[in-house]
């Protein structure tokens, strides 16, 4: 088989090319069609949606559903509007990403660039958390947050999620890949640890920080289980947590509001999707580097 040299004629090559594009187009359609379907349903009246579901028709309800999704709220407080949930998601995403990166860089700096007696111990203490996700210790975590009086607060939402070492691990790997000569040069220049960190390490890590930030932002924004548990006040709901309310309202006895619900779902995915698309190269780099 190996020795046999196979040659293709021109039409054959063309056919292969069409086949390749066909596979890719099919794949792309598989990924995007469900979202287009959500979009289509937001343009139709709810009664139509309830009776026929998704269709090819385009209606005129888009503005109305957008208004309802963003500015109307259920409940006595009237607090859980789409705008409010968007705000909360933003705080969760940004706070989580920032917290994770700051803590991770600090700890990684200590581990990589300092001589410590209990370095190995610290390393293991931190990295045991790497693969033990919040989900498996969710119940006691909840109790502790509750003991600390942090239910329905931003701290309670963000800090327990930070308690894992993904960012630390990532920065450790990255710092270790920085050439040793740089440190030597810095030491000859007489730079102290603080100066070295701020003037050399941080600027060097810029791209990595950006990549990490995107990944962590998306991760924080998309959290579901934890926000579902610890936020019970309507004005603390995030968009993704609000999905729970969405599915429940589709189950109600009166006319299910598909238009509004789907619109909220779209709003919930838009910011992270846009970030991933626009900062694609950073994001891909960060993601694939982190496995080294």
């Amino acid at each position, binding site marked *: 088989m190996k020795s046999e040299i196979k040659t293709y004629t021109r039409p054959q090559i063309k056919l292969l090319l069409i086949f390749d594009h066909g596979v890719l187009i099919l794949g792309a359609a598989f990924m995007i069609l469900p979202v287009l379907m959500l979009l289509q349903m937001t343009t139709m009246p709810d009664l139509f949606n309830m009776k026929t579901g998704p269709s090819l028709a385009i209606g005129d309800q888009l503005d109305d559903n957008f208004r309802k999704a963003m500015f109307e709220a259920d409940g*006595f407080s009237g607090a859980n509007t789409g705008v409010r949930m968007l705000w909360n998601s933003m705080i969760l995403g940004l706070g989580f990403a920032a917290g994770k990166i700051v803590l991770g860089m600090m700890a990684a700096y200590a581990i990589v660039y300092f001589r410590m007696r209990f370095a190995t111990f610290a390393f293991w203490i931190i990295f045991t958390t790497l693969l033990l996700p919040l989900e498996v210790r969710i119940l006691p975590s909840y109790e502790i947050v509750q003991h600390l009086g942090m239910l329905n607060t931003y701290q309670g939402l963000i800090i327990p999620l930070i308690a894992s070492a993904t960012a630390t691990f990532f920065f450790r790997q990255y710092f270790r890949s920085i050439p040793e000569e740089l440190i030597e040069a810095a030491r000859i220049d007489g730079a102290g640890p603080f100066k070295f960190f701020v003037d050399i390490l941080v600027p060097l890590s810029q791209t990595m920080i950006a990549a990490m930030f995107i990944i962590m932002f998306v991760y924080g924004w998309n959290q579901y289980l934890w926000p579902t548990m610890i936020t019970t006040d309507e004005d603390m709901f995030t968009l993704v947590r609000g999905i729970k*309310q969405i599915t429940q309202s589709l*189950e109600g006895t009166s006319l299910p509001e598909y238009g509004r619900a789907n619109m909220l779902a779209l709003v919930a995915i838009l910011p992270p999707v846009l970030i991933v698309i626009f900062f694609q190269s950073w994001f891909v780099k960060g993601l694939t580097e982190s496995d080294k």
Partner: protein
Amino acid sequence: MTRVSILSAAALSMMASGVAAQTEITWWHAMGGALGETVNQIATDFNASQSEYQITPAFKGTYEEALTAGIAAFRAGEQPNILQVFDAGAATVIGARGATIPVQDLLTANGVEFDINDYISGVRYFYADSDDKMIGMPFNSSSPIMYYNLQAMEAAGVEAPKTWEEFEAVTAPALVEAGYTPLAQSHSPWIFAENFMSRHDLPFATNDNGYTGTDTQILINSPEIKMHWSHVKSWLDSGYYAWFGAGWGDNQTPFEEGKVAIWLGSSGSFGGLSKLDLPFEFSATYLPYWEAVTTTPTQTFIGGASLFAMSGKSDDENKATAAFFEFLTSPEVQYMWHQETGYVPITIAAYEMAQADGYYDRAPAAEVGIKQLSLPAGENTKGYRMGFYVQIRDVMNREFGRILGGETSVDDAFSAMEREGNELLAKFALTQAQ
């Protein structure tokens, strides 16, 4: 309309907060959608009816979520004044003596007259302790009833069945002939287990249905209910019955779409159904029974939820809670709640007010729930009290689903329910040991 009144209430309360010391209390509930709007309306009306107290309701998700949120908050010392707890959670919250103030004590201590006989008989003891003391205030009380599509009945030339025998022999074949799926049902554990027991006056658990002790055993594995489920399965196989999943709405939708002729649901669904503007006329009647099991069918258990006054609050706040309960149980409020939602009025006075107003002449189906709850009581119709009942229900739901999916036999399913139910009850008994 509701939205406007909420807005105006918010404006009012903002103005009011400038005025002197009102006692503020909180109420956590699980009433979403249209029900939630009615809850908000009641709160708004209470706040407008007097100037001393201010109540704020908060929607906490499903029944299960509201209970968990309330428990967690209690453990953190941040409990609301009033917590809505559903039927399946009753044992948990009543078992935790000290977590709540019995509503009967709360009312009498704050000078509100209380007589348990003012409440209609079906709701009196469901949230009471073994000494018949009312612990939780019945709030949204419903009963499983049978809704039917009048057009379908007419097309098939049949009446709504009184017994399951009639359904099987007459109603179902005729409805199939007329092109309908005869029957669907929305909550198997509630309708085809708990209320199968109450309707036929069969014991559901030892210790007087669990009221008089914690070493309770569940009596789910009885020949009568197994007989019922064997029939249900055969109905499914012959197209007399259709099952659309464990979700409530999954089974209600086909009725609304006119595909299913008879739907067993909650009397509390009446409000929602009436607002839907269905393309057919519908009515409702009592839950059928098996003549082979009993010739004197009894009243059913209530479903829905009740309101518990959480302990650890100041006297002032407890006073406000008592005042709110007094407002809530007044005939006017009960009648309004009954009309808006379809839940039964919990007091006799409210029921009489609805009768006098001619409401049931205009909407006869709205009376079915309360009439069914006022049928003769039996020894086993007071209620049931079992710990970890949310999980026991989940076990039932799972096994019922497996029977219907053909994954298990009726016998195996019921022995599994019995075994797992008893394990959960034994575990719960250990959590209650001092």
